[in-house]
């Protein structure tokens, strides 16, 4: 049986919007694909060994939780950058995504230095960007849709050394103005999307698993799974995004509750 290992950074602290759903999705799909996935939680103060993991995940947190881990994350900068440069499949969401950039400047606390895997910076804005999101994403040469929910006030601006994850079809994206969302560097993907993200986008879960298999076993065959429920949820999320992102009328708001 093929085995893969997943490192989850700060699972207790960085889980503000149930990002643990992404770990559940990776675990389950590996199981269905006949792959054993070892999951290791990495806490503040733990060692980060750069040659031990095939997959890495970090979720979101509030400013306060980010402050709690920012220093420790920075101390793991070298192994994390080595993993990224070596093609490890990684996924960073929301607060974790921000700290994978060069810096994050919150409203009330000092600037946090990020690990700089993504050439980007984030500055806290005044308006919270909240709602359903649909992206158009190109991965493995295919155009796919990606669905999720965003909730952030940080505005992220990408530098020249990094590509966006996708184009915003519904929602705000990185900053609400350039129509871009997320970031991609080698096999590292960053995004603001919760949902949890992976369960409703099973193709992305499989992409991460395939990337990890390719790097470890030099082959990445995955069998076809029955994704009927996931596909229905994906389509329903697109429809819901289109319906909710219209401005509600005065009368509709009156009867909302």
């Amino acid at each position, binding site marked *: 049986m093929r085995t893969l290992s997943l490192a989850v950074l700060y699972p*207790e*602290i960085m*889980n*503000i*919007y*149930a*990002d*643990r*759903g992404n770990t*559940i*999705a990776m675990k*389950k799909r590996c199981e269905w694909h006949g792959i054993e996935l070892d999951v290791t939680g990495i806490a503040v103060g733990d060692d980060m060994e750069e040659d031990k993991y095939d997959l890495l995940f970090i979720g979101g947190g*509030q*400013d*306060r*939780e980010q*402050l*709690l881990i920012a220093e420790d994350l920075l101390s793991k900068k070298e192994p994390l950058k080595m993993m990224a440069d070596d093609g490890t499949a990684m996924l960073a969401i929301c607060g974790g995504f921000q700290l994978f950039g060069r810096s994050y400047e919150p409203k009330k606390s000092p600037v946090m230095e990020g690990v700089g895997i993504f050439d980007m910076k984030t500055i806290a804005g005044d308006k*919270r960007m*909240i*709602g*359903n999101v649909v992206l158009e994403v190109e991965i493995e040469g295919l155009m796919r849709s990606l669905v999720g*929910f965003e*909730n952030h*006030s940080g505005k992220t601006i990408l530098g020249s050394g990094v590509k966006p994850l996708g184009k915003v079809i519904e929602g705000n994206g990185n900053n609400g103005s350039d129509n871009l969302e997320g970031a991609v560097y080698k096999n590292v993907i960053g995004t603001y999307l*919760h*949902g*949890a993200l992976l*369960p*409703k986008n099973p193709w992305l879960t499989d992409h991460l698993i395939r990337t990890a298999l390719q790097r470890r076993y030099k082959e990445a065959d995955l069998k076809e799974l*029955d994704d009927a*429920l*996931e596909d*229905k*949820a994906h*389509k*329903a*999320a697109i429809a*819901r995004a289109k319906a*909710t992102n219209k401005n509600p009328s005065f009368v509709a708001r*009156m*009867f*909302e*509750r």
Partner: protein
Amino acid sequence: MDIRYLIAIEAAKIGGGLSRRFGLGGGTSLPGFIATRVDPKIVKKLSRHLQRSVVITGTNGKTTSSNMLADILVESGQMPVHNSEGANLVAGVVTSIINDIKSDRRGRVGLFEIDEATIPVVTKDLKPNVVAVTNIFRDQLDRYGELDHMAALIKTSLTYLRSGATAVLNADDPRVATLSDGIDVDPLFFGIDDESVASDLVDVARDESVCAKCGSPLTYDHTYYAHLGKYRCSACDFMKPKLDVRATNVMLGLDRASFRIETPSDYFEVTLKISGLYNIYNALAAISSAIALGIDVNTIKRALESFTPTFGRLETVIVDDKSVHLMLIKNPTGFNQVLKTLELGDSRKEIVIAINDNIADGKDVSWLWDVDIESISQSDNIIASGIRAEDMAVRLKYAGQDLDNITTIKNLEKAIDEGLRRIEKGATLYVLPTYTAMLDIRKYLESIGDIEAFWNREVSV
């Protein structure tokens, strides 16, 4: 004469009447919505109709706590002006006071459950005598931003109170326990003090991990559920405050709970006709608020022992000799508690889980991934329903449920029909809806089952 005020009241009454006549719903908020549009100072002006008022806020337990306190007030001979329908934004509060004006009884007690985001606006104008805070959980973050922001909103509202007002605070919730710090109010701390009901599991819905004072991690001697428990800061001197009103000797059954209440001057035993640790917290919030209002303990005990929850929180409706058991779910902690109660039930259950994502439910359904869905028995049959039925179905699949046990029926009425079709006479269908799904399901059950007509009972505009 205040023409604007008078027009606001009349417009509200007409709006409420029209809404009821044409069956539009929204009767618990619409009149207030209209009145606040016509006269922005309406809350302040209406507050003259109240002699004293109590505000109950927090993420979980607002409605049950305030319903318990309403029963206690009635038992003590006071008829509260109460937004008892769970209409907990400004419009709902205004509606409840307007509904009461025409009854022309002055000098009454106002009792309002208020949404965390609305509380500064309401307290500023209402100047309540007691503000009770049940807890702060991750609930509808898409609406309010982050937990710290929610705590800040409540703290701000406490600064608006008159000197001598009481802040009734859940001491077991570290974020709530610090709310009165540095503010000129009298804190009254309540909590559970009984290690025998502490959880030995590390709860997945832990929201609180750091000290609200210094930001260092908190350590727990034990937790009752989620982040409620006996805690201390690992770095500074912050710890669970000394309890003014404590519950000890807690015994939990399937459909009842008993405990002893101890205050600095008194103690008494209570047996509730409902179970769940969360309901003991609800009772503690109500008891502590009643004590702050000077109500005697015998009255409190009598009212609580006859208390029955209403309005879909936890109730049974009979349809065609079959029972429908409604259990409201709002967030991971509440959902987990409901699942724990379900584990005490039959071995092969038929369950409908109805997930909506309207504003009142929370627009972000991510929270389903923080619920310990894995604890649902593999032998149960589940119908996923509501606007986000498909999300629930996927969550069930990834929790390891057999695909044959998962049915997706988006339409709420059809889901209830199918659930009822699957059970025998005398059996129970368990229905777990989010807030707006609960409203629609209740309306449907009203039309097919034996249930008191909600709108007729609650609305009088």
